[in-house]
């Protein structure tokens, strides 16, 4: 990450719970502290409670219990218009009966700014998103990407310290989405604002965020910077939700500190790093990333356990090759390797042995 931020508790969720029907909790005991200037992403499948958290922060939903602090102040009972939080909506919510300029003037008018000041700020905000020539257009006359920029400019024009974004790039095509990710990230760094970003797109979360909070079932499963999240998932949900993942089920055969050996269900033994297992005999799921799997003996550490594998098929993906293997009775074991000059070509039906560094195999909770 390019910026390092201290977690000074600019936004704090303190034991927040939310229920809509009085019977089930959509958000269960949320504790989260966000630092000033941080880009924090709430990532999770739909229904995981991430959008509800964002709406509580924006003031459109009230927390059923617990409190939300903004810059040290409890904002539970503060109406949305007094919070001074910028927000970008998934549908952009550009006012259709106003021009782009009027859309941007709206937050400034309700703050009672003079016309001269408004015009200066609008011009600055539009230039910031390279839309300076579009002030007199109507939103309907703009493409999706242009509307997205205007929505961004409108959320920033009144200089909020905190900006919330609710899947802002969900409606854009892939190429434009990647471009806008880059622009939003650049704006965040230039303006030094705090951003809370909600998405279900893990790629988006990994490329943009300082930290990612992975939501599932109303709880934060893991809160960590992208690299840590990808390389050191805390549990099986995070391991399978972020990136491609191989999961091998088994029981702990031996445990020494964080070094563990796991006996798979077919009797094979592998090395692993103990993450959230405590005792020998416990059931576990070992998570290994496809690109960390080796099939050349010289690349494996000394004394590492290896497993026999049968190549099922190999998919040519350009920069990499993706082989599906049958390992330990599972035929959905995936290995990725770089398409370099002189790389060994595997053929379906070939028998190989695969292995990995023990720190790349993480023994997690059983699925």
């Amino acid at each position, binding site marked *: 990450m390019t910026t390092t931020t201290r977690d000074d508790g600019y936004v704090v969720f303190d034991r927040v719970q939310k229920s809509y029907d009085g019977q089930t909790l959509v958000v269960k005991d949320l504790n989260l502290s966000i630092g000033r200037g941080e880009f924090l992403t709430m990532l999770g499948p739909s229904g995981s409670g991430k959008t509800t958290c964002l709406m509580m922060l*924006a*003031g*459109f939903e009230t927390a059923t219990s617990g409190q939300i602090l903004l810059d040290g102040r409890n904002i539970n009972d503060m*109406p*949305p*218009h007094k*919070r*001074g*939080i*910028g*927000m970008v*909506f*998934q*549908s952009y*919510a550009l*006012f*259709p*009966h106003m021009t782009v300029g009027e859309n941007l003037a*709206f*937050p400034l008018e*309700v*703050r009672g700014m003079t016309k001269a000041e408004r015009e200066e700020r609008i011009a600055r905000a539009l230039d910031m998103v*390279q*839309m300076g*020539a*579009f002030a007199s257009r109507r939103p309907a006359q703009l*493409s*999706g*990407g*242009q509307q997205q920029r205007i929505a961004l400019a*409108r*959320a920033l024009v*009144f200089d909020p310290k905190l900006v*919330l974004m609710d899947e802002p790039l969900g409606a854009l095509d892939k*190429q*434009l989405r990647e*471009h806008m990710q880059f622009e939003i990230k650049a704006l965040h760094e230039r303006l030094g604002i705090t951003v809370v970003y909600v998405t279900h797109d893990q790629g988006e979360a990994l490329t943009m965020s300082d930290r990612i909070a992975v939501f599932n079932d109303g709880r934060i499963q893991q809160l960590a910077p992208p690299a840590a999240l990808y390389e050191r998932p805390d549990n099986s949900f995070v391991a399978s939700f972020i990136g491609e993942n191989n999961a091998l089920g088994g029981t702990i055969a031996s445990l020494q500190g964080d070094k563990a050996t796991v006996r798979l269900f077919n009797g094979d033994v592998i090395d692993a790093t103990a993450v959230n297992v405590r005792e020998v005999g416990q059931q576990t799921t070992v998570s290994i990333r496809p690109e960390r799997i080796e099939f050349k003996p010289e690349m494996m550490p000394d004394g590492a356990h290896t497993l026999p594998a049968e190549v099922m098929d190999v998919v040519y993906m350009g920069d990499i090759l993706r082989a599906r293997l049958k390992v330990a009775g599972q035929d959905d074991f995936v290995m990725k390797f770089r398409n370099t000059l002189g790389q060994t070509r595997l053929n379906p039906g070939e028998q190989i042995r695969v292995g990995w560094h023990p720190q790349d195999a993480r023994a997690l909770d059983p699925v």
Partner: protein
Amino acid sequence: MASPLDPHAAIVTEAGGLDATLTTADGTPLKRALARASRKSRWRAFLLVLPLLAFIVITFVVPIGQMLHRSVYNDGFAANMPQISGWFAETEPGTVPDDAAFAALSADLQAAAEARTIGIVGTRINYEMPGTRSLFTSTGRKVRGGVEPPYREALLEIDGKWGEPELWASMRNSSTAYTGSFYLASLDRTRDTNGDIVQVNENRRVYIMLFMRTLWLSALVTVMTFLLGFPIAHLLATLPLRRSNLLMILVLLPFWTSLLVRTTSWMVLLQQQGVVNDLLIWMGAIDESGRLKMMYNQIGSIIAMTHILLPFMILPLYSVMRTINPSYVRAAKSLGATSWTAFRRIYFPQTLPGLGAGALLVFILAVGYYITPALVGGASGQLISNMIAEHMTGTLNWSMAAALAAILLAGVLILYWIYDRLVGIDNLKLG
């Protein structure tokens, strides 16, 4: 300019129209080939709408055309009194009738009396000058056997009214089959003895007042339906579907009840010995001598019409409100607007197409409303449509009814045109 990296900003439409001499592969001009290819589907479309088209032409366009024609055409005098009509055509308005005029008149009267059309002639003049029908019929009886010259003295002897300039002015006005006199009468105007357009006597000036009252009451009813319907429509659009369906049934319930039944129930409720007055007395708000008059006056018309026309305001509003994404109001609030500002500047402007449609619908329906004012309006709650009905069924002056209706139609069309200029008819959303 947009960023060069943004592919959407760089959409370029091909400039320039198609070349007019474009041909298909076998050399026929493209336009002709296209016309031939689409001819069949156009014929099919035409045949599909033909029954409805015929129905509308026969039941709608033709009667309205006839009505408009009748408003400027009445040959009750001109066809039956040809000689005097000819004299009117040759002389200037204001000419004092000479012997030739009386000769022509008495000949026409005799002929009309013998042909038994004197009543039609009298009725036509009666429209212009009330109370003259009997003059024609009684004179007709007396001249049937022939009139001896001098004609002037002979007619004056039968009835002195034959010398009145007003009568001659009325006959001159009626002497052509095509006439604007019904439109003049609809606007409380007539032609005096010199042929100039003047206002009718003060005690006969009713139509302009009725037009004004109709417009005013319709506008008031429109405002009332808006004030009452807007919150309901909003509730309908925001409630969960199951509960909004129930509410919708309540809104539509009046539609399933006969108009007459609804109007009559209002009579039961609002009359001086009615439920509302009894309730107010029971609550002590008024005493027995102060029973409110809410029926057989304008108030009765307003209340009953507002209730009956309410769904026509609610439904278009509802259909528009349902499509307004709640994130607009949320966005406004997040940008710092209070709930009121968000409503006024963001929500309300987006409901305008529905409001326009509802207002136009209610207003146009109210302008032509007939049964309800006739039943509950009393004297002060009568509208122009009641007068049209009176001329259709009471005085049998269909030309007058047609002229009043045509003015009403023109007024509505003008309103429609103004609405189109101000709001745009494509913004109209009826559902």
